[in-house]
């Protein structure tokens, strides 16, 4: 397949995707249900004044742990990209 035909097919596929995405977003808007956020707003006032802090540290701590870890991982990966800690196969 030549590059032109490929680009045409890709563009067509993306147009189909975007049409269905926009349509589902338009359908989505009236369906939004806050759910658990109601509960957070009621119960959170007893814990700390800022509700996002309450969510981040009190209810969803493992997300925050993951957030910190991905920063550490990214820093180490960037150091690795520039050459720290490469390994070589071979014995002593």
């Amino acid at each position, binding site marked *: 397949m030549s590059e032109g035909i490929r680009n045409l097919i890709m563009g067509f596929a993306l147009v189909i995707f975007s049409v269905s995405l926009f349509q589902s977003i338009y359908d989505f808007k009236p369906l939004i249900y806050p759910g*658990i956020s109601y509960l957070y707003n009621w119960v959170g006032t007893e814990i700390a004044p800022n509700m996002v802090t309450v969510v981040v540290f009190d209810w969803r701590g493992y997300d925050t742990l993951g957030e910190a870890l991905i920063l550490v991982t990214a820093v180490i990966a960037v150091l690795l990209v520039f050459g720290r800690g490469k390994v070589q*196969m071979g014995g002593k």
Partner: protein
Amino acid sequence: MNLLIPLMVIVPIICALFLNLLHKKDRTIKAIAIILALTLPLLPILASYGIHYFGGYAPLAQNPTLSTGLPSLITGTVLNTFHPAITYAFQDAQKLFIFILGLVAFLAILVSLFETKRPSGVYGFMMFMGVASVIALLLTDDIFNFYVFFEIMALATVGIVLVSGVKGNYETALKYMILGSITSPLLLLGIALLLGVTGNVNITDIIASLKIGVVDPKNPVLLMACGLIVFGWLYGSGLPPFHTIKSAIYSKALPHGAALLQAFSVFTLIALGIIILRIFSYLPFSQMIILGVSLLAMILGITMALLQTDLKRMIGFLAVGELGYIGIGLGLGTAYGITAGLFQAINEVVITAFLFIGFGVIYYQTGESDIRKLGGMMVKTPLVALLVLLAGFAMAGVPPLNAFQSKLMLIQASIQAGLPELGVIMILLSIVTFMTFMKAFHAVYMRPKPADLEIKNEKIPRATILSLIVFLVVCLIFGLFPQLATGFLQAISSNLAGGMP
């Protein structure tokens, strides 16, 4: 003893951070890595079953101190049973999965410490971080938490590839990250759509609100969400169209790294596959798509493996092809089929790690992985050659070994589900898998040795032999006593097969 449940994630994280701090202190790295890696398979054995709520916040219905003074708007509705905090569920299936993952991780880390010139703290960091995130993927009952650890796993995968120094690894890592950056936000969008419609990210609550009719399960937004999550699933597990990049990733990592990376893919496949089946099994298309994609993965993976000349790439494609068997088990949707698929997943993790580390000995000794330039290694390493041959038998499904049991179960399940064609294809592709393996085995071990092949390292580390023998023992145990594994899997598969009314 429920404290041990979060510890399963936290211990490898602590080890990862330590190893990075200790970079360049070789002895200490070795000691700490071995001791802490040993806890990986031990913790799931010691931990008792249970559900862990972050911060101890159980749902309101079970938590009277939290629910005092709340209006009936909350306590009287479905919100009363919602999980406010991140929940980790540790049941019998998770016990088996985490044990196997811990075992493979321990052996891969052990081999990596003895096969490299100097132990690298950074390599250890990436391996442990990947293991921690995959354990979190298996434990978590929260779909956003799943996404966070999914991304950590992707970054750790890139780290393991970058560390290897194989030619072309930077390019492959960049391709993987570009494709991942297209796909992961779409997975997040799918999660956001689910959150918006159901009002929660806890999977049990999402299912409950679909079941009791708070949300109309047939609404088009949920269909879109399912499509996006399935697309993320394809990326995470390396099913087509991501099979080329996934096998390239395996081939650009060192053998022990690749052994761990394929375990990550398999466990991501079953963790997200279970989530898709739990939430969306009421959609008629979900199981058909899982079946179709798995079939494609089997056919493309195994036929492409035949054409490769690079040893690691060949096993990489075989590993992707074997993923198809697991997908078929999940896609059949019957309890027996799902048990067979999950059992096959466990066997495949062990066998592919076995093959990667076994053929990795060749790479360790010669620094070469092109099969056209290899040959005559049988004389040098008869014991390893025998072990690798047994690994090949296991992958093809020869009777006393484990994949025989799971493939037999898969074929029986497909006949029971009224699709005997799948059984025929699985047998056919098993034969071709074995032929592919024998082609590599013949080229590496039995052909006369080419004159220009030089052997850099004569001595094989004892740790490598030990880990190969452990893999063989696991294969034999699961092959002779399959009830040991399937007993752990029955509860989850009968739950999944129930589906939605």
